[in-house]
């Protein structure tokens, strides 16, 4: 656990995570001279941005509060041990439906949550970028879907996404760069359910290798993906963008918690205060990018209030921290006669996006996909005790069906509501910073979506002969919103380039800029936006508009 005690990115070198014991040379920048860009957070938003900006010749220092793990040497095949990847600092949750965070959706490591994500790499439906104009709900994005689809393609190529030759939904897309993975028993159960329901299914496009890539081997189907990949088949930010960024001249500082963005007399950001190696330090910067995801990003900006920005940075609209969205994560579960052994392989090898693309037959706005499941024992028992309410002998007996269990689970859209928000609580964390209070209440539309999904998936499991079917009525996963992008300073926090309307050298680059969340996992979209933002910064710099 040494990586949790002593920074690894220092003395001019960084861990080469693809080779045991090896190091990469890493540039170091002095604190008292401003670097072009400070980036706070090295996950799906911060890491690609750091890479692309460094490649464009900017000086970049990226900070992460978490450790710089070497998966080949540090990662166990063990759910409990690997909790070291999660953001486990205290957060307070309230509202009608208090959220569950931590292992569910929050990472604290170089590479952020991508170190323990399930690798599901999906594109948004084109219409979602104009959901208000075209579909009648939410708000429009200031981005054009055709431009986004070009970035999706770039991301899929960069990460060697494995996927099918043809994808059943949406506009024609090119073949995925790496072949699809074999679908496991749990995924084939989804396929049979979809066949019975008369809808398409597909092998899931995944950010884990189906063939060798440089020093990284193909996936061996060990199934501990959401506890961290110990073979480096997973194309996380830790194994891709971060080493690429280091090679391009960026400096990454691990175990470095940024507590405050400083602003000068001109109202512009001048650098960040961060806690590392036992003391608070200050890094000067010409630009600051906050990439901490939908809770830490508003928390940092709210905690950076000053006389000139009394309500927090980038909050003239009053919208910072508001419109927090989650994705609903409800499921139906049942047993099959056959031995499924769903612990083998990535947890979601097959999916159905039918209800993302079909608008008829719905009594709700938005969409959802559903995927096959493979929770490991600790995650599975949490489902059985939480939503199913089991304990005692009934629990022990139900758990013994583990190898026969199948499930279908959604990633469902929820609508933005201003009452759902992140604020600062009175309690403080180990750094002396106010902890985040996360308030979320389900809306009526969200409930109708979940009811539709549970009914549909339940019929699917029934059709394939599953027994003892039950519905997991409450669960949420990915986050979004809290620093939404938009068309003007009154109704959004950042513009289409992720640049703050109020503080022009302050940027936000993560899932908090999402105006709506859609019904697919967000990581590919976050990375696509980060790469677009990098290109926009290069273009703005070229014409003197930075």
């Amino acid at each position, binding site marked *: 656990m040494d990586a949790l005690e002593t920074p690894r990115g220092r003395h001019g070198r960084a861990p080469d995570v693809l080779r045991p014991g090896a190091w990469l040379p890493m540039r170091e920048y002095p604190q008292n001279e401003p670097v072009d860009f400070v980036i706070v957070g090295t996950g799906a938003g911060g890491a690609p941005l750091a890479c692309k900006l460094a490649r464009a010749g900017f000086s970049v220092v990226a900070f992460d509060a978490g450790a710089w793990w070497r998966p080949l*040497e540090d990662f*166990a*095949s*063990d759910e*409990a*041990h690997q*909790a070291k990847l*999660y*953001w*486990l*600092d*205290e*957060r*307070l*949750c*309230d509202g009608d439906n*208090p*959220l569950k*965070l*931590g292992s569910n959706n929050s990472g604290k490591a170089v590479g952020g949550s991508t170190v323990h994500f399930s690798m599901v790499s999906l594109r948004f439906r084109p219409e979602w970028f104009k959901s208000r104009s075209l579909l009648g709900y939410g708000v429009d994005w200031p981005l054009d879907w055709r431009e986004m689809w070009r970035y999706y393609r770039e991301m899929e190529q960069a990460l060697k996404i494995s996927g099918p030759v043809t994808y059943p939904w949406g506009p024609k897309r090119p073949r995925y760069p790496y072949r699809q993975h*074999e*679908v496991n*028993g749990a995924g084939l159960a989804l396929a049979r359910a979809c066949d019975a329901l008369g809808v398409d299914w597909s092998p899931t496009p995944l950010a884990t290798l189906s063939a060798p890539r440089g020093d990284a081997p193909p996936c*061996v*189907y*060990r*199934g*501990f993906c959401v506890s961290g990949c*110990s*073979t480096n088949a997973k194309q996380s930010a830790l194994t891709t963008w971060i080493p690429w960024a280091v090679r391009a001249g960026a400096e990454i500082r691990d175990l470095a918690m940024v507590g405050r963005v400083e602003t000068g007399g001109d109202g512009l950001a001048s650098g960040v205060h961060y806690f590392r190696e036992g003391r608070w330090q200050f890094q000067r910067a010409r630009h600051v990018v906050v990439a901490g995801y939908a809770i830490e990003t508003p928390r940092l900006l709210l905690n950076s209030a000053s006389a000139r920005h009394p309500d927090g940075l980038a909050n003239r609209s009053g919208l910072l921290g508001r419109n927090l969205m989650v994705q609903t994560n409800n499921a139906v579960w049942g047993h*099959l*006669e*056959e*031995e*499924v*052994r769903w*612990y*083998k*392989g990535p947890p979601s090898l097959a999916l159905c996006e039918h209800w993302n693309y079909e608008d008829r037959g719905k009594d709700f706005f938005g969409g959802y996909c559903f995927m096959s499941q493979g929770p490991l*024992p*600790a995650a599975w*028992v*949490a489902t*059985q*005790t*939480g939503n199913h*309410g089991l*304990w*005692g*002998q009934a*629990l*022990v007996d139900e*758990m*013994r*069906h*583990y*190898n*026969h269990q199948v499930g279908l689970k959604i990633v469902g859209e929820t609508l933005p509501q201003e009452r759902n928000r992140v604020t600062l609580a009175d309690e403080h964390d180990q750094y002396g910073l106010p902890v985040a*209070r*996360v308030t979320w209440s389900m809306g009526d539309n969200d409930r109708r979506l979940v009811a539709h999904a549970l009914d549909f998936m339940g019929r699917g499991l029934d059709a394939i002969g599953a027994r003892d079917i039950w519905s997991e009525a409450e669960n949420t996963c990915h986050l979004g919103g809290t620093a939404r992008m938009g068309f003007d300073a009154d109704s959004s926090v950042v513009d289409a380039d992720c640049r703050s309307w109020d503080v022009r050298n302050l940027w936000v680059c993560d899932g908090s800029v999402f105006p709506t969340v859609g019904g697919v996992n967000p990581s590919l979209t976050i990375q696509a936006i980060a790469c677009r933002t990098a290109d926009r910064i290069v273009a703005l710099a070229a014409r003197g508009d930075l």
Partner: protein
Amino acid sequence: MSLPRYPGYDVLHKRNGPSWNEPTRRAVDARLALPREPRFFDARQWALLNALCARILPQPADRPPVPLAAMVDAKVFERQGDGYRDTRLPHLQDAWTRGLAALDAEAEARHQQPFVALSAGQQDALLTAMQQGMLHHPAWGGMPPALFFSERMVHDITGAYYQHPTAWNEIGFGGPAGPRGYVRLDSDRRDPWEAAEARPGREDEAREANRRVR
């Protein structure tokens, strides 16, 4: 469907094989070597916690029990939080301290005896009332009993159990799997290093297959 059984399967037989790497061996070894003496709970709380574990996660008498109370004690002592806290619950340590005291207060109020002295049926009735939010003793101090039940008590006890190799054996889980992983992904296709489920009347075949798991 009768309950699946995996006679003779022991995931620890794979400990020195290609399904376990060094970090995995260290992590599981440390779990198996966990001290059995409490570091956080006092004697009365410890007895109550052991009684609770026996009801929440009953274990068969024909094998060494998973030391659930010790695992919960370690979690609480080391303040291993989950990364979120419902605002109606106090901190991890406070929640456990208050929850155990309140449960004993409920037992005294109902039966004039501490929880540990109640019959299994009385204990289960009290726990069921707790799960359903039907307890109202002032000792709860505003902490909702049903929330403590699901988010803390059952969560921590059952979460401990299913991270223990004994539980993996019981449910036929393959256990640690890196770097070897798996080959046969389709249903009813067992890799030779996976648990073999007993077919009715053919228990010996499963036992023999499980003996070869490495």
